Each structure stands twice: as structure tokens, then as C-alpha cells.
């Protein structure tokens, strides 16, 4: 009993240290984003200071940053819409056994999720230049399907599989066509799963860098590129850099706190199933 109490205390110690290490960098940068230049560079660091909002004001006056923020919002919206419109019927059908090439399609989905971004970006760069999709949100959302679509199908398949097959049969006996069964039985029952999938897709798109870097130039630049733009000032304007980073992170942090259960469930499902 004594041994086990010691182990529990040790566990708490480990968790507290890890939790602190996890949150400290973010808190510190929030601090810098609210400090004057002098306070930020002060040695030893100032723990008590008067917060100022100048850096945020500067970032939010930056047209490039605002554009990137909105572009990422649209890309996430469009990317999710595409993935669900295309992926939900596929997930539904791929759960049935007698689909020709089922195993091949599933392997293909896994691969396109796993293969490196530039395998797709480099050749698509040319195609997009030729077709005018280069530097467009639509083009970006389309290429995001290399990971969004497999992930969505993967997740929805798992959620659909939890729907008892007897419900499908019962609906068939009532005269429902298979698309009606999908819309009226499977989709409502998988609603929590859809929420989790949307959240994870959104995080992934919001944070994406390599594809946006390769396939946008100006008008479709995303929030990650806007944040990367502050990198050059690293030695000079820490306040603005921190404010930009925090602003870009903020929506996702809100997600993490509000939708903790969905995120945790979705992540485990994606990897364990």
C-alpha cells in the first residue's frame, strides 16, 4: 500500500512537470505578445508587467495577416465540404463487402495520406499554373483532399461500422433506398463522429504549410504563411511576432478546450482502428 502511494505521488509529480512544460512556452509567448520591447528583453524576465495591446493592434492592422486568416478559414470550410460530400458516400459503400476493389481503394487512401506533400505539390504546381488554379483557395482545398479525404473516409467508416446492420435491414424492409438509409439512418447516428472529423480536418488544414507554400503566392496565402512572414523580424520585433503566432493559434486552442473529448476520441480512433 505504501509503495503504491509513493507511485501515485510520483505520477502526480511527473504529470505536473509535463503539464507545465506543455503549457509554459505558449504562456511565455502570450506574455511577450503583451509586453513592451523593453519588458520583453528585460533580464531577469519580468513576471509582473502592465499588458499592452499594441502588438495585437499592429498584427490586426496588417492586411496580409488578415487576408491569410480569412483564406485559411475559407480553405478549411471548402476542404471539409469537399471531403464530406465526396467521402461520406464512399465511406458508406466501402463498409459493404461486395465492392470491387475495396481493399485496393483502402490501401490507396492510406498511402495518399502518408506520402510526402511534395510528391503531389511539384507536379500539381505545373498543372495549376496552366489551369489558373495556382494561388486559389479552391485549388488549395482540392490538393488538401490528399489527406482530408482519406482521413474523413477512414473516420466515417469507423463510425458507420458502429451502426448495427439490422438497422440497415429494417430500413430496407420499410422500403428505404440505400441513399435514404445513408441520409436518414447512418448520418444522424454518426453525427458526433462528423463533428470530431470536422474539427480534426480543420486543425490539419489550418496548420498546413508545405502545400500552401508551394501552390500559393499572394491572394490565396494562408495564415501559416502570414505567420511565417514574421520570421524575418525574429531578432527585432518579438512582440508582433508573438502576437501573430498567438492570434493564429488562438482559434485552435479554443477548439482544444471546448472539443477536448472529440479531439481525443478522433485521434485515438484514427490511429487505433
Amino acid at each position, binding site marked *: 500500500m505504501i509503495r503504491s502511494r509513493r507511485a501515485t505521488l510520483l505520477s502526480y509529480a511527473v504529470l505536473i512537470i509535463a503539464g507545465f512544460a506543455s503549457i509554459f512556452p505558449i504562456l511565455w509567448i502570450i506574455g511577450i505578445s503583451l509586453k513592451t520591447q523593453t519588458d520583453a528583453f528585460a533580464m531577469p524576465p519580468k513576471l509582473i508587467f502592465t499588458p499592452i495591446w499594441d502588438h495585437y493592434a499592429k498584427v490586426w492592422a496588417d492586411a496580409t495577416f488578415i487576408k491569410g486568416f480569412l483564406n485559411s478559414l475559407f480553405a478549411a470550410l471548402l476542404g471539409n465540404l469537399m471531403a464530406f460530400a465526396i467521402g461520406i458516400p464512399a465511406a458508406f459503400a466501402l463498409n459493404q463487402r461486395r465492392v470491387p476493389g475495396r481493399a485496393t481503394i483502402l490501401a490507396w487512401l492510406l498511402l495518399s495520406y502518408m506520402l510526402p506533400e511534395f510528391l503531389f505539390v511539384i507536379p500539381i504546381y505545373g498543372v495549376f499554373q496552366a489551369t489558373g488554379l495556382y494561388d486559389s483557395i479552391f485549388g488549395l482545398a482540392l490538393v488538401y483532399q490528399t489527406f482530408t479525404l482519406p482521413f474523413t473516409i477512414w473516420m466515417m467508416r469507423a463510425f458507420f461500422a458502429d451502426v448495427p446492420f439490422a438497422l440497415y435491414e429494417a430500413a430496407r424492409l420499410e422500403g428505404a433506398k440505400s441513399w435514404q438509409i445513408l441520409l436518414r439512418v447512418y448520418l444522424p447516428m454518426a453525427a458526433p463522429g462528423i463533428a470530431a472529423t470536422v474539427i480534426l480536418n480543420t486543425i490539419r488544414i489550418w496548420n498546413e*504549410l508545405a502545400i500552401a507554400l508551394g501552390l500559393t503566392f499572394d491572394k490565396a496565402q494562408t495564415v*501559416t504563411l502570414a505567420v511565417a512572414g514574421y520570421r524575418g523580424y525574429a531578432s527585432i520585433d518579438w512582440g508582433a511576432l508573438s502576437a501573430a503566432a498567438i492570434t493564429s493559434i488562438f482559434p485552435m486552442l479554443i477548439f*482544444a478546450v471546448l472539443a477536448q473529448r472529440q479531439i481525443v476520441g478522433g485521434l485515438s480512433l484514427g490511429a487505433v482502428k
Partner: protein
Amino acid sequence: MAQDIAPSQPNLWPYILPTVLVLGGVTLYPIATVLWMSLHDWTWGGDSIFSDVKNYRLLWLKGSFLIALLNTVTFAISAVLVELVLGMILALAANRVTRGAGLFRVLMILPLMVSGIAVSLVWKVLLDPTFGVINAALGAIGLPEPNWLGSTTAAMPSLVMVETWWQTGFVFIILAAALKSLPEEPFEAARLEGANGWQMFRYLTLPMLRPVIVTVVVFRLIDTLKVFDLVFGLTGGGPLRATEAVQTLTYQTAFKFSNFGEAAAIVVIFSALIFAICAAYGALDRRTGGAE
């Protein structure tokens, strides 16, 4: 999971066709093109001349690809090892405590929500050799203050450290979920047999978690091999190529030096490596009876 619908099974192809078309467009077509590009002296708009395996031979001769590959593999293996060990320790610890586990979970997933580029900026500020808080703290207690990102010896370990801060939460979440799903009876039986904590971990927990651990390692391994954002944001591949990764090299070759043929060759070789890992994992998974 899979079911028979009989006798009048609907035609399911209309459900799958859009996926096949879109996925074909954004993956199959590019893969074919990139293979072709890698065998040509490629210029956009201009004439592309068949160059056989010249692009591949150049990679070998220039050596920068091999350096990047070595760096990338070193980075991936070290990061995954550290993440796995830390994630396991944290999952075991969280499994023991009753209070505060939910709060800890939120704290652990916070870094996962942050983009790689923002992670880079955060740590660039923290690790700044002159004004960074970490060196200030080390200096205050009389420890050496390393040039984290600026020296050839420290840059790679620093990168691994940042990656670990970023992604350990993922490993933790999955291992914690897997731990929670383990049945209790075997552990009770083992305790009655007199097994100690380590023995239970070694002979019960670890073997039962094996399939999950394999999956997590494969996912993390592939993800870390594809490292781009951190290198791009923190070191730009430097100093002196000490942290150059395959994906950053690809990006530079294609978009900075417009050498698309050579970039295509890099991508082809690198993709083959990723493919091999996926295939090995798929074969392993089938052998051990995993789904799909």
C-alpha cells in the same frame, strides 16, 4: 464490419466514383507526372529533354541528398524514440491518478493544436541565445548556455526537442486510451501471483499494447520523416546543412532553384521509402490479424 446485402444489393459504384476521380486527380496523376519529370531536364513551358537517370545520378554525386536523408532519418528515429518513451511514462502516470487527469489531457493536446510554423516561432524566441528565457534561466543557476539553433552540434538535438514538445501529446493520448481499454482481470490475477509493478508492465501491459505501439510508431515515424515546418521555421536547414531535411531540400531544389527534374527525383526516392514502410506495416498488420 462488412456486410452482405442480399438479394438486391444496390450498385455501389456511384458512391465510390467521386472519391476515385478526385483521389486519382490529386494523387495518381501527379505520381505519374513526377516519375516522368524525374527522367527529364525539366523546365516549365520550355522543352523537356529526356535525360535518363541523370537527375538520380546527380543526387548521388552532389551528396546533399544523402546528407538530408541521413539528417532526416536521425531526426525521425530520435524523435519517435523520445516521444514513445515519454508518452508511455505519461500514459502510465495518468492511468494511476484519479484527479486532474482531464486537465492534464487538455494541457497535453494544446501543443498538437499549434501549427509547425507557430511552434517554430515560439521556440525561436525561447531558445534565443541572447534574449531567450531558457538561456537566462540556465545562466542564472550557473549552467552553460548553448547556442541551441546556431551550432552544428546542438541544432539537431534542439530540433528533436522541439518536435518532442510538439507531438508527445499524440503518443500520450493514444497510449492512454489503449491503457484504459485493457481488461483488469489479468492484472488482478498477476497481483495474486505476486507480480510487482515492473513485471506487470513487462509481461502484461507491453505485450497487450504491442499492436497499438506499432501503429503509433509507424504513424509518428512517417510524420517525422516528412518533417518540413520545423526545419523551415527554426533553422532553414542550417547551420551548414546540419538540419537539412529531405522535404526542405525538395522545396529548395524545386521552388528556390527551379530545378524541378532533380526535385522530382528526390521525391520519387523519398516516396519509395515511405511506401516501403507503409507496405511493411500493412503486411505486419495483416499477419497479426489487424483490420484492413
